């Protein structure tokens, strides 16, 4: 994906995460590989339960253990291996190197502390800043995320702020120690449509100002098209397609990506004559405990054929920078 020679900021290689459940072992991430370069935005899309959030939590070292654990693979940040680090070192990295914002700004802020305190606290912990200096940074960060009257808002409790404001506070908090990577896990899912656009604008603006790389997890294809440089499509714990956002959205090679794109409603149908009903992908994401030997998408795929049930397809190059994992692509190439 990153075609330039500079090594990526974050590199995830063959990451496997397993969860022990009553129904058996669930492989929630199956050989996931991702690269993200400094200052870029990588979008990760897919249905609920496909492993997007688990990828984010793995990078943060926050996979709930038990029941989950990183079975194999590597995550390296600027050449430094993150898997297997002890908790203390991980605490150093979280916040200072990697920041994260979550889906639910309503419940992701601690209700019993002021937002200023919650932002200032990580500055105090990570930079050994004094109380006043940390609070000054908190106010500065609130200003940076376009919160009006930041010095007054810093003394507000989360319940006194609107949803959009809370998500801005979350962003301010994640960026307070100037991390090089920000993971945004569905940052707008719980917000109104107009506020969603504002938050995406803000993320883009901050990314351009600070050069922070962003992993944007979403199922909003529109946001991916607008913001992301690269995109990875996940299905049932695996990446089924990845590449530059322009290529993947205009010429999706995997049937699942094609399905996702046709699922997006258009206000003005394009082309205008194509006034058909909104399409959907039939079926549901399979249970991860009983995936067969074949392609996980095969039961829902319109283009499935004999080979699809036999073995899982590998990611192969379909162009210089675009990769897909589908048996149809392999047979095309031969």
């Amino acid at each position: 994906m990153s075609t330039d020679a500079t090594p990526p900021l974050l590199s995830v290689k063959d990451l496997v995460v397993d969860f022990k459940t009553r129904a058996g072992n669930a492989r929630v991430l199956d050989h996931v590989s991702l690269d993200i370069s400094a200052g870029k935005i990588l979008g990760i899309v897919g249905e609920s339960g496909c492993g997007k959030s688990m990828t984010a939590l793995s990078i943060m070292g926050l996979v709930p253990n038990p029941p989950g654990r990183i079975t194999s693979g590597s995550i390296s940040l600027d050449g430094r291996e993150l898997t297997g680090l002890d908790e203390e070192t991980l605490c150093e990295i979280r916040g200072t190197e990697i920041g994260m914002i979550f889906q639910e700004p309503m419940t992701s802020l601690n209700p019993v502390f002021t937002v200023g305190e919650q932002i200032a606290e990580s500055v105090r912990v990570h930079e050994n800043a004094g109380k006043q200096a940390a609070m000054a940074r908190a106010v500065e960060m609130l200003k940076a995320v376009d919160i009006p009257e930041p010095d007054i808002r810093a003394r507000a409790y989360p319940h006194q702020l609107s949803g959009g404001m809370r998500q801005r506070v979350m962003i301010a908090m994640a960026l307070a120690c100037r991390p090089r990577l920000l993971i945004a896990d569905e940052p707008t899912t719980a917000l109104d449509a107009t506020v969603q656009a504002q938050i995406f604008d803000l993320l883009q603006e901050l990314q351009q100002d600070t050069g922070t790389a962003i992993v944007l997890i979403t199922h909003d294809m529109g946001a991916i098209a607008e913001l992301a440089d690269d995109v990875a499509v996940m299905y049932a714990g695996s990446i089924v397609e990845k590449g530059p956002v322009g290529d993947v959205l205009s010429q999706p090679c995997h049937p699942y990506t094609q399905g996702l794109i046709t699922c997006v409603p258009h206000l003005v149908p394009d082309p205008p004559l194509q006034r058909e009903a909104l399409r959907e992908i039939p079926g549901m994401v399979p249970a991860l405990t009983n995936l067969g030997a074949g392609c996980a998408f095969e039961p829902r795929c319109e283009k499935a054929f004999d080979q699809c049930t036999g073995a899982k397809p590998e990611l192969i190059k379909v162009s210089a920078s675009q990769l897909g994992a589908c048996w149809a692509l392999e047979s095309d190439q031969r």
Partner: protein
Amino acid sequence: MSLTHTIAKRIGWGLLLLIGVLILNFTLISIAPGDIADSIAGDMGGADATVIEEIRERYGLNQPFYVQLWKYVSGVARLDLGFSYFYNTPVTQLILEKLPATLLLVFSSQILAIVLGTLLGVLAAKKPNGIVSLLVTFLSLFGFAAPVFWSGILLIIAFVSIFPLFPVGGMTDVTVEGGFFVQLLDLLHHLFLPMITLASIYLALYSRLARASMLEVLGADYIRTARAKGLPQRMVLYKHALKNALGPIVTVAGLQFSAVMSGAVVVETVFSWPGLGTLALQSILARDTPTIMGILFFSSFVVIVVNILTDITLRVIDPRIKAG
């Protein structure tokens, strides 16, 4: 609503409640069977009808009910709780002599139970299947199942008879002489066993409650946020989680306070602790109604004050609470 406004309102309601308690107590004791004049006469060794009539006259027992009630309530307003038939002392003075001992026992055992219980609960919640968690479960089963008179007596057998580490009862040892610290040490020495006994039930309650409350809070999104910020584990636990988990503990501690006061009666009796509980027991046995009513009044007063303090504490902990 501002905090001072809330406090003023709470105090107003508290006063009304106290007056209600007074009227109810007085009425209940008046309609209870038995004649007070008779029992006073009985203590004097028996008396004929004219003497009993004199007693009625002296204590105003021959006046109509509402006059007696009014005299009593207006007396209480002047902090005069009447005169004890049994001790021949003003009730207010009697109670003020015994109250400090009871408050010392009740508050020390509650503070011990809340602090230690919360700490145990947090440690148990940290590892829900760990050894501390098991200990908390065992402790709460034992604490709930063992009545204080029994556990108190067991403690006396263990630490007074078999291993004579603690005094058998009372609050101070008259033979101990020395400065303030020596006296204090002696007091704490006497306090230890009754405090542990009274704390045991509540230690069980609070550790169980803290464990459940912490487990719930630890699953919250803001705990994940705190971890994602890179806060060390102890900050996540003792700052972010604990402050949220304290609400139920404070609420229950406030509600339980009246039960603690009545538990103190039993514990004081077992350890001959010279507090209100011992006084209450003796005055009930002696049918000393002014003292009984006085003690009931003071216990209600303490319970109401503690509940007001509970409300204030809850508001300080959680800014979302806007008490009406």
